[in-house]
């Protein structure tokens, strides 16, 4: 069942639209949202979390429009959908101890006695693999991995049904990343959580998400079963992303197309970076269509599927690759 969905959502900061007419559904399994920095995935996440109103389109929670929820509906939405942001040190108030941060989550919707609260905090910390003694620490007294675990514990405190994970591991060391992903995988299974996993890393979605969408320049260019996207990408951008996954003993990764080129204003936004771009791509914006079990917005999707892969397809297991340098 679809818990949370964007339907034709356009999002803008001031007059600059950064997400164009995007539709995306998050259900009980894991859903991946992949794209490079600046592709609009975090902005989309903010809209799904109700932190930002769509310029047009609808964010649907259950059966209703998020913008039209009353006070009670809003509170229910807040309990049901929780975020885990990129950086635990940002997501936790630097002046609050871990325990106080979790307590805030516990007491926002329910009254709770002091002892009950302490018990729940200890249980939540244990659940995310932390020593309950950490409740007395402030964010700067913890490691990055510990902070992210506290942020996860805080999100779980309201017993949500769905997590929006916005690059939950990209601020962490590679070894810590793998453990946080293990944790999220276990917690999602144990608590029956749906989740939207936002990342720029294909390896991570390959492991955690049944279906995925790929965003480029504020548009979903391809969506479908994650395995299909990774093994047989139908959009040149998906293929370029997959080929950019570094692997041991392999060729050095190639950048996803000519990364310095901007998104095109007219026609296909990817055409300036696309090795397959033809005149039609400049003249006509490709619409999403069904091609072999996925939706893809490319005029030449069939040809992309036909061309042999640049290198052997691989669904990596384990850690996320380090952050790409940011501009």
């Amino acid at each position, binding site marked *: 069942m679809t818990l949370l969905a964007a339907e034709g959502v356009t999002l803008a900061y001031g007059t600059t639209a950064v997400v164009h007419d995007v539709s995306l559904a998050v259900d009980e399994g894991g859903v991946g949202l992949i794209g490079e920095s600046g592709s609009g995935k975090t902005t989309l996440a*903010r809209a799904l*979390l*109700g*932190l930002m109103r769509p310029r047009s389109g609808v964010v649907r929670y259950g059966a209703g429009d998020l913008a039209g929820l009353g006070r009670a509906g*809003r*509170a229910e939405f*807040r*309990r049901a*959908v*929780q*975020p885990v*942001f*990129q*950086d635990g040190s*940002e*997501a*936790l*108030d*630097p*002046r609050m101890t871990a325990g106080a941060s979790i307590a*805030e*989550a516990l007491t*926002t*919707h329910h009254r709770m006695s002091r002892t009950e609260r302490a018990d729940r905090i200890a249980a939540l910390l244990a659940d995310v693999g932390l020593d309950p003694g950490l409740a007395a620490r402030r964010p700067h007294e913890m490691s990055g991995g510990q902070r992210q675990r506290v*942020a996860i514990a*805080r*999100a779980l405190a*309201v017993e949500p049904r769905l997590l929006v994970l916005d690059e939950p591991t990209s601020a962490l060391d590679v070894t810590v990343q793998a453990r946080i992903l293990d944790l999220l995988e276990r917690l999602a299974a144990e608590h029956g959580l749906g989740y939207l996993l936002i990342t720029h890393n294909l390896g991570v979605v390959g492991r955690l998400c049944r279906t995925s969408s790929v965003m480029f320049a504020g548009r979903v260019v391809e969506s479908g079963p994650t395995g299909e996207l990774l093994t047989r990408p139908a959009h040149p951008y998906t293929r370029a992303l997959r080929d950019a996954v570094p692997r041991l003993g392999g060729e050095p990764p190639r950048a996803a197309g000519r990364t310095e080129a901007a998104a095109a204003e007219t026609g296909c936004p990817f055409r300036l970076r696309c090795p397959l771009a033809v005149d039609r791509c400049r003249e006509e914006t490709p619409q999403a269509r069904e091609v072999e079990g996925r939706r893809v917005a490319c005029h030449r999707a069939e040809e992309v599927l036909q061309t042999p892969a640049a290198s052997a397809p691989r669904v990596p297991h384990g850690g996320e690759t380090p952050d790409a340098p940011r501009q």
Partner: protein
Amino acid sequence: MTAPALTTFRRTPLRHLAGVDRLAVAGGVLLGVVVLAALLAPWIAPYPDDGGSATHPLESLLPPSGAHWFGTDQVGRDVLSRVLFGARTSLLIAVAVLAISGVVGVGLGVVAGYAGGWARDVIMRVTDVFLAFPALLLSLALAVVLQPSVTTVIVAIAVTWWPWYARLTASVAASVATRGFVDSARCLGVPAPLIVLRHVLPNSLTPVLVQLSLDGGGVILTAAALSYLGLGAHEPTSEWGLMVQQGQSLFTTDWWVVTFPGLAILVTAFSFNVLGEGLRARLSR
């Protein structure tokens, strides 16, 4: 080009820390002395009655001596005693002005910064109106309209002082409002007033506290200026600005009447500034 400049300005963390702390500590100690003088004035002043309306016509304008370290004024009051009591007036004004304008300015600023939109526009335009007037001029105008008194000085200065805190707090709060922990509180469904009180306000206060301590000296100078112009404290209250005004015509003959209260203003304003600078350097590391 830039590399040598960078190395020139780089300091070792240890030396940096020591230098900063020395400054803050020096300011704190100096200010502590002034505060102690103010608190203990009735007990440490050699002639406590001289802080008020006592007069000793036979002892007027005595130069500094063992009996009167700072000399005596026109009506024979001990200048040292009056300087000590004057510290009470000046610090009372400083604390009251900073408290009033701090609470009003920070309160409005944090709301403007977090809420944004029309609320910010309204608050910031009002703030701009107040800032458009030269501060001393506005204080003067107010002080002229109201009865001259210490309360008048406090009100007149506070009215011109709060907009600075409103503006500073609004800009800090606006940037704090974009931090992840505010988003995550919003996602929990924490009501906006609680988000402001719990998260935005405490994380916006540091620069305001630095500014408050830097401004203490300015308030004391302004208060002295208003009293000097006859718009603030009046006889027999001991107030440094008033004492300077009364003693200035005697400067060439009886220099002590004007010099010691003047020095007191200087030292107090200086200690606020040094403390503020020290705090700023320490907190902005």
